[in-house]
């Protein structure tokens, strides 16, 4: 097993946390993992993305440029990465903020309106968890239950009150792709 995951969006969309949860869950599954953030040259409000490598072998470069699994949470990220996804890879799109379509048939594309769904849940900020639930369910990159279990370890204690809503969001994500 060797997955190179790239997650991209605006700063503030919780991209980094998504990646860290994936890496953490992978570690708990006895994979070799790495997580690597990247902020655009613009300091503020620009794009933010992170790469996560999960593998049965020690991780070489932690920098992901050709993902096997890509999550884009906004439009600029789609423009930047849609052609970079490896053949047979996955591309998850936050269709609430991205209305473009992808003209590739060598990859699997999932469009989920996670921001709208999160809004509907009453908290735009859990869009990332909805996406993560979906990603885990579709790809099995890490088991869904593991993801739920690591929430409490990745969130700082001060934010543990948010665990229930995040769990709900993960589950909603699962449901959305199970339908």
């Amino acid at each position, binding site marked *: 097993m060797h997955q190179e995951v790239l997650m991209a969006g605006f700063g503030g969309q919780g991209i980094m946390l998504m990646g860290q949860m994936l890496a953490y869950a992978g570690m708990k599954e006895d994979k070799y993992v790495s997580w*690597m953030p990247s902020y655009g040259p613009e300091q503020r409000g620009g794009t933010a993305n992170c790469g996560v490598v999960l593998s049965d072998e020690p991780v070489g470069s932690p920098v992901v440029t050709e993902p096997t699994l890509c999550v884009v949470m906004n439009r600029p990220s789609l423009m930047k990465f849609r052609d970079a996804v490896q053949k047979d890879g996955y591309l998850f799109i936050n269709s609430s903020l991205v209305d473009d379509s992808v003209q590739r048939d060598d990859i699997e594309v999932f469009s989920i309106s996670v921001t709208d769904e999160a809004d509907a849940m009453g908290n735009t900020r859990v869009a990332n968890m909805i996406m993560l639930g979906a990603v885990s369910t579709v790809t099995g990159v890490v088991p869904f239950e593991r993801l739920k279990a690591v929430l409490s370890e990745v969130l700082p204690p001060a934010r543990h009150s948010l665990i229930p809503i995040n769990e709900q969001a993960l589950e909603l994500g699962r449901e959305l792709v199970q339908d």
Partner: protein
Amino acid sequence: MSDLQLFKGNEAVGEAAVRAGCRHFFGYPITPQNELPEYMSWRLPEVGGVFLQAESEVAAINMVYGAGGAGAKAMTSSSSPGISLKQEGISFLAGAEIPGVIVNMVRGGPGLGGIQPAQSDYFQATRGGGHGDYRTVVLGPASLQELVDMTYEAFQIADRYRNPVMVVGDGVMGQMMEPVVFPDMAEVTDPPDWATTGKRGRDNFNLINSLYLDPEELWEHNRKLNDKYRQMTEKEVRWETRATDDADFAFVAYGTTARIVQKAVEQMREDGHAVGLVRPQTLWPFPQEPFDELSDRVDGFRTVEMSLGQMVEDVRLAVQGRVPVQFYGTTGGVMPDYRDIISAMEEMMRKVGGRR
């Protein structure tokens, strides 16, 4: 593997230092190493230590001088421009024989440059950017586990020789997360007997000093320092080789770059090319042995660095013309692509190829 913790590089350095017995950190913010002082700012008080944000990098290294001279395991960290500002201080630490650990999370230069990862401070780290004949042991980890282990050991090496030790990472190393296991918490030891603790009943007074106005005395002092440097060269040198046993050509790379080169090696091996990798773990002392061993067996070395070519000089010094040594690099914060690395090696193989 239950002790595994997913840590950010900069924070892992901090925790490793705490485990090594470091209780005093003096730093000044600079990207991409800010998480290290930030970590220390809450972690050190927790274990009874002191974090102090200095007014500048110059002040920070001189606080390390004071604290180290007073017998503490002290540390500072910065990134390229800030490390340049510490050069006088590092020379003073070496001259006055004060242990201390300095971390450089290298970014692109020169000048203000950029904030992305680079390895273009190699010369500065290994040749001493400061004045005078002095050396610092320079550790160049390639994974966060190694970063943790080397940070821990840096304090031991510094104490062993009463000499500053540098840990050189880069933006990637500082920012990435990987699972790490931390060494156990070392006991915090009493100040050594040379430290300026106040006499506390001692008959003599202790002195921390690097001034010797009489040139003969200063030469003598330098000879003494040089003996230590020779010992370090013998005892502290470290490297790793991968797939070199049957290699026709070998890459040389350290730190983050070595990880990317490793990918290139695997790919080339899959494609049937007998290539390997020499990875210096200590940048100073630089490993001579693997080059002596391999210079009889390989047809050439290809050094890969995130710089315009700095470590390649050490490789040339080690190889001494026995086989060709070529350089490939990116700089300014661009990380080399493993495919470009492969192309570079293939080109070398074509040109040098049939040599033996």
